[in-house]
């Protein structure tokens, strides 16, 4: 669930206000307000929408607990999803060039499980 809105980074662009499907954020005079934190679904899409890397979503769907912001920055976790997704790069930067591997890797796992099961039940 939503854990941090980093005031020093926020430019009040309100991208998170528009993006959140659960209406977690209300617009504010200086920056958005986390008005309905408990409505957060842990979808991470506000972080993806935030070009300033000013948001952090804790990984549990039933908890807002997270380390302090400076620890998260030091660990490289703030802004990581947006960077991994390639949303800071030009749209044609090839950020989806590995996406074709999803199906083959998923199927490779299925094959591994099938072979292991057959081996276990062979003898």
């Amino acid at each position, binding site marked *: 669930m939503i854990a941090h809105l980093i005031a020093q980074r926020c430019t009040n662009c309100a991208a998170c206000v528009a993006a959140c499907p659960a209406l977690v954020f209300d617009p504010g005079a200086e920056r958005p307000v986390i008005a309905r934190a408990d409505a957060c*679904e842990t979808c991470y*899409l506000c972080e993806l929408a935030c070009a300033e890397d000013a948001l952090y979503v804790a990984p549990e769907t039933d908890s807002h607990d997270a380390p302090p912001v400076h620890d998260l920055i030091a660990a490289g976790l703030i802004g990581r999803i947006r960077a991994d997704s390639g949303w800071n790069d030009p749209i044609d930067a090839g950020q989806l060039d590995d*996406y*074709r591997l*999803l199906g083959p890797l998923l199927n490779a796992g299925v094959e591994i499980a*099938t072979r292991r099961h057959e081996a276990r039940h062979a003898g």
Partner: protein
Amino acid sequence: MSVITTDVLIIGGGMAAAWAAIAAAEAGARVLVVDKGAMGTSGVTATGGPGHWWVPPDPAQRDVAIARQTAKAAGLGDPAWMERILDLTWRHLPTIAPWYPFGSDGQGGRFVNGVRGPEYMRALRAFAVARGADIRDHHPALELIADHAGRVVGARGMALRDETSWEVRAGAVVLATGGAAFRSGLIGSHACTGDGHLMAAEAGAHLSGMEFSISYSLSPAWASTRTLPYTGARFYDAAGNELDIAPPRTGHRHYQTLGAAMLAGPVYADLIDAPRELPAVLRRIQPLTAAAFERRGIDLFRDRFPVRLFGEGTIRGTGGIDVIDDDCRTGVSGLFAAGDAATRELVAGANSGGGAVNSAWALSSGRIAGAAAAAEARDHRPFDGTAIPLGRAGLRPGGAVRTIDTAALIARAGHAVHAYDRAFWRSETTLAASACALENDWHLIAGHGHTSGRAKVELRSTAAVVATARWVIAAARERRESRGLHYREDAPAIDTAQARRLITGGLDHVWVRPLTTQAQDVAA
């Protein structure tokens, strides 16, 4: 109340709603989209990564694919519909190119059929806006409105930001509200409460395939993610003993054995056998999945972690609003259905359409319904007479108003549909118990539910969850055999005499009846 007029009203904000908006606008209609969330982040596609069913337009290849899918549909699919969605998907998915950065296919071309959710929905929103669609986010519809002949002429709802009411009058309405996940925690599904199912039923529409609404995905116990990393997992109990889990390829048996283990105690996954190439590229494919682990300080490829199954209800299942013709009409004049809100039984039959077939359906049914609604709107100007609001449960109680514990009702409905012991081994005994509990809850909310402000949306969502669970359980009781996703421990074999669809509907009195159609005779 603000009243807006338009040609086509689309209710929903996921991929089917977007494709419907695009197709309706391309057909020349004024298009208004109202969504409970925000188009672009709403629904299960936005956090997912649909790999559309994708077969080149070569008759031999298409025939093979359709024959395979028809067999998988276990006697209930319609090959003609399969052919249509293969064709529409092939022709239209590439048209998102101006807004979607297709990746490489590794051979100098573009990889088209698999698209990442956030980028896909961002692209579809931009595409719909470019075609002229007017999108109102955070504007949930609460009920449909009709003329005196019963024709649906629009909807009413709430603008969440300022809690004001709105009414839209339209020449035609498309329900693209998604499936129902019964608040299982499945990522992206929180708003998927069967709202369109309830609104359609209140207008007189029927549903089909509701008994095949059992599907699950495996995820870490603390949050639902995509499932890419887990397909090769080993499983352990709390004492560290390896569990003998049937592999994913066994389908229902895989989930049965996992469910049985989870009923006995916590289950842990170990990804030591994962494909060797996976760790290096996981975050390039599914950044959100990597985040769910590293933010807990867990190395998912080295550390064992607790897992559970998250219900996917009618989302990965096949049930939904029945469509009665090639235009995705619901049988109610002026009302169309698309995507997961609609039945997928035509293309998936008794089994899950998985991501691929269901995504092809969402794109295709969205385009079909959008174009047909635009054509319909040419003959029907927005209604300017006195409209009749159709919403009942949660809006207009039959008796004295009482406080409704929405969380408790949703939890009971989720238990009836998704509890492992009830879902993986259905029987008349447990189905009857579920039906009884749901019946009480339905009459409680329909008889006494009423509230004001934003809470109205949650109360209506609760009514929709309970209603949808009732149709699931009623259809499951009526299908006295095991077929596809539907397994009855008191009738474990397939019965050829029951190779027909079940249609269900009704509000205060739920009914189920078999349907025999020409298409189905051909499929069988």
